[in-house]
């Protein structure tokens, strides 16, 4: 079960990590080694075994539809890298993932 350097580069893009060629050279074999090791889970016969996503069988935890105090805008924006018109200023967005117009 090996992962190619190209696949590692793809993973880096998906994860929004601007890795250099050097980084990729270093990381790819490490990832490969780890993936081989964790692939051991496939040895386990798990037909019909339900997956567990929670340690405890809790269900139906809700809250009531009651308003609670919000953070003041100045606190919300106080540590933003950039602010304009009381909004978070972010660099131009290329991806039209969910165009909200």
């Amino acid at each position, binding site marked *: 079960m090996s992962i190619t350097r190209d696949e590692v580069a793809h993973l880096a893009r998906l994860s929004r990590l601007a890795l250099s060629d050097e980084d990729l050279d270093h990381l790819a074999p490490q990832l490969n080694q*780890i993936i081989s090791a964790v692939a051991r889970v496939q040895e*386990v016969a798990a037909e019909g*075994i339900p997956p567990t996503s929670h340690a405890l069988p809790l269900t139906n935890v809700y809250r009531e539809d009651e308003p609670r105090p919000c953070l003041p805008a100045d606190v919300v924006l106080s540590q933003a890298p950039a602010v304009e018109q009381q909004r978070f200023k972010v660099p131009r967005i290329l991806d039209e993932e969910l165009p909200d117009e």
Partner: protein
Amino acid sequence: MSDDLTRMTAAELSGELRAKNVSATEVTQAHLDRIAGADDHVHAFLHVATEQALAAARSVDDRRAAGEELGPLAGVPVALKDVFTTTDMPTTAGSKILNGWQPPYDATVTTRLRDAGAIILGKTNMDEFAMGSSTENSAFGPSHNPWDLGRIPGGSSGGSAAAVAAYEAPLAIGTDTGGSIRQPAAVCGITGVKPTYGGNSRYGVIAFASSLDTPGPLARTVLDAALLQEAISGHDRMDATSIPEAAPPVVAAARQADVSGLRIGVVTELSGEGYQPGVLARFQQAVELLESLGAKVTEVSCPHFRYALPAYYLIAPSECSSNLARFDAMRYGLRVGDDGNLSAEEVMALTREAGFGAEVKRRIMLGTYALSSGYYDAYYGKAQQVRTLIARDFEAAFGQADVLVSPTTPTTAFKIGERADDPMAMYLADLATIPSNLAGNAALSVPCGLAPEDNLPVGLQIMAPVLADDRAYRVAAAAEAAFTERWGHPLLADATGPASLSAASEITKGAGR
């Protein structure tokens, strides 16, 4: 006098404070002095909150003077792992990417500590985003094991463990996701507890792996850990995964300290190859000791525990790849590359590359891989099934024994730098602790001696069923009492590094350097 104060357990300090033999301010100052003297060597703290701590101490003193009834931890200092949000101190999660972020809200654990009157001395060092077993992944340099400064204090709650072992604080809070409280506690010769998952609120805990992260106490005695746990545990409506039931009575159990008639199960799969001989020897002696106290010892097999490590290293990175996506330079923290030309996507990628360390990047990519369509079933999906099998192994084992035991970690504290370039070797530190994270049951580590080959601490891991945390405390306290009697003193007294009290005054003198 101040040496005496830092030497005391939390229970002892509590008594002295209650009796008004000493003030919270004195206690706090003594510990701040100790930190000033020792922390240049130990580097347990990322942030020492001198002003806030003294102010909190004064407030406790005023309230006590006014006749108010205060809880047992009022005036007792505690160190907080830098993964918990605090409004009056920065919170880094051991990473550069938060870049001085000061949270606008306190974690529930933080709030409960403040409400209990505990004095938060500061924030302790940790592996970045709780990923690691040595604090070497901290963006701010590792912490050092008070037993031997050239060795790791364990991780990811290494700073918390080192602080307690170096007498800088009687109590500390950490988080345990794969062993990150228990393993540091073991290699530092102190007690550390991972409660049943959901026993302590995760609201305000910077998330690593949501279904595994568990805040818990570190202390020099089992009773101290219990006192701290009772102060912070309980249902939190801000955390949908927090246990609704009343918390188990761990303080009473710690005082009960009795194992007669209890069945102790030794887990076959959690020993043998990969475990240091001296660790196994001390573990074996611990089991014999428990038997001599009246416990019945059996061997139990948990066949799927072999798959716990690979399952964990699929589940945890998967959840973390998602939890860490929010660090994208848009709303807070580090922003790199915003020159007016680069796109948001590029700025995100440059920032995350610069702000995250190697281990974090590895796990993010591993998690992204495991969740990818086409791979989900074989990796993440399979790992979640293995998790069910491990939980069933525990259930079956707890049918044969009341508690299960193992060495907490396969080796004693390794040298700083020894495993830093070998992720797989580093991961092996979690072999024995991980199963309890996957199943969510309670588990703790209590000191059981020094390994003969290197004179470094060994921890005994005690595991109890889900919601039966008190049972683990009961057995641990019994073991602790018996060991202390056998050794003539607590294990820590054997430390010859900065943790030792004889060295304390030398270090304090040298603090001016």
